[in-house]
């Protein structure tokens, strides 16, 4: 449970001044960016960090004996260490740079999954998963003959933990779960589920895309075997993500992509893989992006993850409260104390596409659709929803602007 609402310690005015894109107007109105669940904006420090790489130290990493190459390699590895410390992993061998959360999950599904699963084994997902933590497991099931099972959700939008003992059997080989639902905002009890999963011999992969950016992460407390998240959802550059994996597991897994960098020895018809983490980083990585991720982590650390969490908690509570002013509106997901900084909703008789379209003309950016969670929407009995998702640079005033714009939309559409 999160702390009850208290004064935010964030200086949002100062923070907002760091984000150039937030200064603009949209359709003649100030931009109110509430689509952070989809992607976040970047502070000038991260934008500058990318430029700095190209202007000062850029060269291909882990290759070459020249000065620029060693500068870029040092910066690249310094970023990896910063990520390790940020999520409290034991070793940098457990931090793999990927193109994103989706890639990281696919890596595990192929590399770990193909080697470890056989027909009749079970993969346990949840009803609230994003497609990126669902489809790779469906594909794995098709390849191996494994079976997909799902932890159901309650009507309140939480995982039905009473169903867990029945679902976790000696056939369960992996539990793939989200730490925070991108639609419901539900914060799941990861450590608790990991413990139960380990008791039956299953490993656990956590989709932490909506979690790592918004609260302090400790992979030791979770004890999860794999954790995937994305840079662009945490003020970091595009096209980059991180896969954390326990060293013993990553060591035992065969490589995923083959190519340069991930080899130890090579003959014309065979190879041996490199050690971690290089084994899973084939080819030239997104160098400037990986280096600049450290700037995002430094920024977040400076602001303080606890402060960010409390701030978002305040915004969500305020949003929940004000949304009750709108007739026919149903908030999807649990009470504010049980969820992260986002709120999805459904308004009777109104298409989210229309709601978002009118909000856009008022300068308010939200997301509408199935949010890559079609099974979840089927469970909720709707085809799509509207979602406002917050981050450190959003304010209570912006939540009020969102509500006023929403009221205007309901008037036009009613």
């Amino acid at each position, binding site marked *: 449970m999160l702390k009850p609402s208290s004064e935010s310690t964030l200086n949002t005015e100062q923070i907002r001044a760091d984000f150039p894109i937030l200064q603009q107007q949209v359709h*003649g109105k100030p931009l109110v960016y509430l689509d952070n669940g989809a992607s976040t904006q970047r502070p000038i420090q991260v934008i500058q960090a990318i430029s700095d790489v190209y202007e000062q130290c850029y060269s291909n990493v882990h290759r070459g004996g020249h000065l620029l190459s060693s500068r870029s390699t040092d910066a690249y590895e310094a970023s990896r260490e910063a990520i390790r410390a940020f999520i409290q992993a034991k070793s940098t061998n457990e931090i793999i740079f990927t193109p994103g959360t989706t890639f990281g999950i696919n890596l595990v599904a192929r590399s770990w999954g193909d080697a470890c699963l056989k027909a009749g084994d079970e993969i346990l997902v949840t009803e609230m998963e994003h497609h990126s933590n669902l489809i790779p497991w469906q594909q794995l099931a098709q390849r191996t003959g494994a079976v997909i099972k799902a932890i159901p959700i309650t009507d309140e939008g939480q995982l039905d933990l009473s169903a867990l003992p029945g679902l976790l059997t000696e056939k369960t080989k992996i539990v793939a779960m989200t730490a925070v639902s991108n639609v419901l905002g539900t914060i799941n009890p990861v450590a608790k589920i990991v413990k139960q999963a380990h008791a039956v011999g299953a490993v656990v992969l956590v989709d932490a895309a909506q979690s790592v950016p918004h609260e302090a992460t400790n992979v030791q407390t979770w004890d999860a075997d794999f954790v995937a998240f994305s840079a662009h959802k945490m003020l970091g550059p595009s096209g980059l993500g991180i896969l954390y994996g326990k060293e013993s597991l990553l060591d035992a897994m065969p490589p995923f992509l083959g190519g340069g960098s991930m080899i130890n020895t090579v003959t014309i018809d065979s190879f041996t893989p490199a050690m971690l983490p290089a084994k899973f980083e084939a080819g030239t990585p997104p160098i400037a992006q990986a280096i600049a991720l450290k700037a995002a982590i430094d920024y977040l650390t400076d602001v303080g993850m606890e402060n960010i969490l409390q701030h978002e908690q305040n915004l969500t509570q305020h949003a929940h409260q004000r949304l009750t002013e709108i007739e026919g509106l149903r908030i999807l997901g649990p009470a504010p104390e049980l969820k992260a900084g986002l709120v999805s909703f459904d308004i009777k008789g109104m298409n989210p596409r*229309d709601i978002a379209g*009118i909000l856009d003309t*008022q300068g308010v950016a939200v997301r509408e659709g199935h949010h890559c969670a079609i099974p979840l929407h089927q469970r909720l009995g709707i085809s799509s929803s509207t979602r406002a998702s917050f981050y450190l640079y959003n304010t209570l005033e912006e939540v009020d602007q969102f509500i006023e714009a929403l009221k205007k939309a309901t008037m036009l559409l009613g």
Partner: protein
Amino acid sequence: MTHVTKPPTITADELIEEFDFLDDPTDRLKYVIELGREIPALDDKYKIEQFRVQGCQSQVWVVPQINEEDPTRLQFAADSDAQIVKGMISMLVMLLSNKTAKEILVYDIKGLFEKLGLQQALTPSRSNGFYSMVRRIHDLAQATLEQ
């Protein structure tokens, strides 16, 4: 072909005048939504795959109608599950109804919508599939020429 009530028509000049008058984007959207309410709703029996326009994220149906007074002039009925999209397809239907197939095929929709500041709706990436709706009406018009 179906027999449905005739939709009202609108001219390009009327649209241009209205959009000139309404310079606030929300008011323009409101106007589009209201246009959508001027054409009759489609009976559920016509909301089938045969009449659905592919390429739209919202559901859109366009149904060719028989114009009993003058079979050379085409008529369309349309509907959508999203009100803004219904407004857009209504604009199309109101602009193009009661015209011959040839007139429909040469009508400069793109030019008009640029004048109205709606050119954003015409890029393929725009999720309302506006191009798909225009294409469907063009295809229906073309089909009558080939009969």
